[in-house]
């Protein structure tokens, strides 16, 4: 692992950062998080057209940029930094990866170009309440009905499930995992927006009752789904890194300018050491994310471990940093008007999403065979 970023990587980061600093400043985030849709379709269109990042990892043959995990990590880090309210993780990362890795060619040709162009927004409905992040725990079974299938049951914690117009469902056929496409106006489909702990990312419960669905994959998809989820996990870890870095910066600025007892509070050793610990965490988180991203592009057989490491470490680090930031800001950090709580809520929800730090450690330890005699 050499962590060699190219000039193009630097350029991508600058472009994206400039864009989001304008289009996703704190006021905009607050507007969107209390809006019904939870994102700004105009901005989404510009992300697709002007920046070309909505189709970042869509392959070129399907109308995307065909870029890799390093570019994705850069973009996701910048999004995390500004708490972007948009269906990026759901549509442009997870659903896109699943379609790329696991869908039939016909479905890819039909759906992916629309995702890349921003014309459609997709979500992957896979989680079931009891054990939501483990594909092997999926119980929903598709019933054959003529040439197609019918789905019944519930998927929950579906990212942007309320606004997606391409609904991809994971369910079983003869015990094997398969992908199904469900029209957003299909009969028997009801969608309930769940009130989110983190209002900058929306989740929904999707209920199906004999809902018609077309199968868009062949064979058992377990491995492909895991690979796609690892990508989403890495992107989420990159978001966490961006958020953590941003919170550290805000907190340092505050500690330099807030005076108590005639001194900037950052001159108090306990505050200073707390900031030093946060710095270590951010730098480690950065190593974890970039390692996972470069592994994704250069060393595929180590991606799974690197992804678990990154999500595990970044979850703990971001949450710790967000918590410390509230504390250092004192009463102000506890107010609605300060941004500290927005990052805290994002940190907490991101820690839970796709599995907590200890869940990912357990998976990593299993992959590496710790203590297996």
């Amino acid at each position, binding site marked *: 692992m050499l962590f060699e970023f190219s000039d193009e990587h630097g350029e991508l980061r600058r472009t994206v950062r400039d864009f989001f600093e304008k289009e996703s400043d704190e006021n905009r985030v607050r507007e969107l998080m209390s809006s019904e849709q939870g994102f700004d379709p105009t901005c989404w269109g510009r992300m697709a057209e002007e920046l070309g990042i909505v189709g970042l990892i869509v392959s070129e043959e399907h109308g995307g940029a065909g870029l890799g995990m390093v570019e994705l990590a850069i973009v996701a880090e910048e999004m995390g930094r500004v708490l972007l309210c948009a269906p990026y993780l759901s549509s442009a990362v997870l659903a896109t990866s699943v379609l790329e890795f696991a869908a039939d060619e016909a479905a890819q040709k039909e759906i992916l170009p629309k995702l890349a162009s921003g014309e459609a927004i997709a979500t992957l409905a896979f989680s079931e309440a009891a054990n939501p992040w483990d594909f092997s725990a999926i119980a929903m079974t598709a019933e054959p009905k003529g040439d197609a299938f019918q789905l019944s049951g519930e998927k929950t914690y579906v990212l942007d499930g309320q606004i997606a117009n391409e609904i991809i469902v994971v369910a079983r056929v003869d015990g094997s995992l398969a992908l199904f496409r469900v029209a957003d106006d299909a009969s028997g489909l009801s969608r309930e927006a769940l009130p989110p702990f983190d209002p900058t990312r929306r989740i929904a419960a999707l209920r199906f009752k004999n809902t018609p669905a077309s199968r868009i994959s062949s064979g058992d998809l377990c491995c492909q789904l895991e690979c796609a989820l690892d990508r989403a996990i890495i992107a989420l870890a990159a978001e966490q890194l961006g958020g953590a870095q941003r919170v550290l910066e805000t907190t340092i600025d505050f500690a330099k300018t807030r005076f108590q007892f*005639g001194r900037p509070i950052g001159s108090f050793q306990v505050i200073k050491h707390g900031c030093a610990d946060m710095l270590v965490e951010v730098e480690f988180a950065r190593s974890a994310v970039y390692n996972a991203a470069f592994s994704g592009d250069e060393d595929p057989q180590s991606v799974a471990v690197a992804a678990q490491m990154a999500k595990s470490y970044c979850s703990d680090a971001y949450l710790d940093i967000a918590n410390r930031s509230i504390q250092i800001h004192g009463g102000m950090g506890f*107010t609605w008007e300060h941004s500290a709580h927005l990052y805290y809520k994002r940190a907490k*929800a991101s820690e839970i999403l796709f599995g907590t730090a200890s869940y990912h450690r357990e998976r990593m330890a299993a992959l590496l065979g710790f203590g297996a005699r």
Partner: protein
Amino acid sequence: MNESELRERTRALLKEVNPDAKGDQRIPFRGAQFDRGLAWVSFPEGLGGLGLAPKLQTVVQDELHKGAKTYYEDMLVNPIGIGMGAAVVLAYGREEGKRELLRRMFTGEEIWCQLFSEPSAGSDLAGLATRAVRDGDDWVLNGQKTWTTLAHISKWGLLVARTNPDLPKHDGLSYFMLDMQAPGVEVRPLYQITGEAEFNEVFLNDVRIPQKHMLGEEGQGWKVAIATLMNERVALGGGASKKGGGPIAVLLELFENVEAKRSPAEEALLRDRIAKLYIEAELLRLTGIRAKAARDSNVVGPEGSVGKVAQAEIGKAIWECCADVLGPDALVYEHGYELRQGSTSSPNSRLHAKYTLLRSRAYSIEGGTSEIMRNILGERVLGLPGEPRVDKDVPWKEIRRS
């Protein structure tokens, strides 16, 4: 008056006046309680007391709890007034009108709030900047106060302001009681992380306070403020919770009842974490009992001082653990974040835990940050030396502020 006479006097009150009224209807009972000296037995006769030892108050409370179904806890009626204001008014208020002030405070007819903290004076309370300038028989105040509970329904505010910026910071302060209905007092809700406003900001624009509403002398503000905060400590350091009660009980209940498919390893990690928290919560409780035992025998030990910081940290950790027991369900926040006044409560442990996870973020900030509390433990309890100070022995106006 001895204990059994006091007990008898309380029983007589309960017999003669209906103690089980609600809302405003409780005023007559509490008024009678005041008039018979059972409000604060240690206060002088005529001012709600009987001149007895403070610890005899527990005899009164005991009888009231036994004899009245719905007796309202004193603190809930008027927490700032009764918990902190009464002793200050008694010690520093003018004699004229004192009885009526205390009586209306005790009955809850006049709610009190406390105006100490400012946006730029949090941990450094004595650095506050609200200015009071003398003008004839009045003081004219300008500034902003914050974190003020109950300001929107208060009649009176306990307020510290700077009357002389040329003196060192602790010396230029004076203490006032502010009529919250006075012109120029503007109360705005202060919304929190939860979307609620439990607190207010209070803006003071050319607010006039008559000299007679100064408590203590000019320049004594810090001393009176410290006395107020000491009362707060006593008020907060009340009875110990019962074994396995409070937040840890919620955690145990959730752990037992929440349906979640955890791997055996996750279950083991969670169980160990909960066992650790159970032990800490239990030791916090037991340490509180030891502290009370020490106070009762007039021994001042360190056990009384460790409570605040430990409680804050253990409380936060318990609510964090509750959220982790809930698992992915914690992604859903049923309360929503609409801005509103007041405080959320829910009889449902699951919903209560989600709310309190957020609310508890302030445990280590409100009422003295854990940083300040650790300074106090280190310096006052362990006797470690203070830091070099840059804000002492210089005029307040020369101290750097943000």
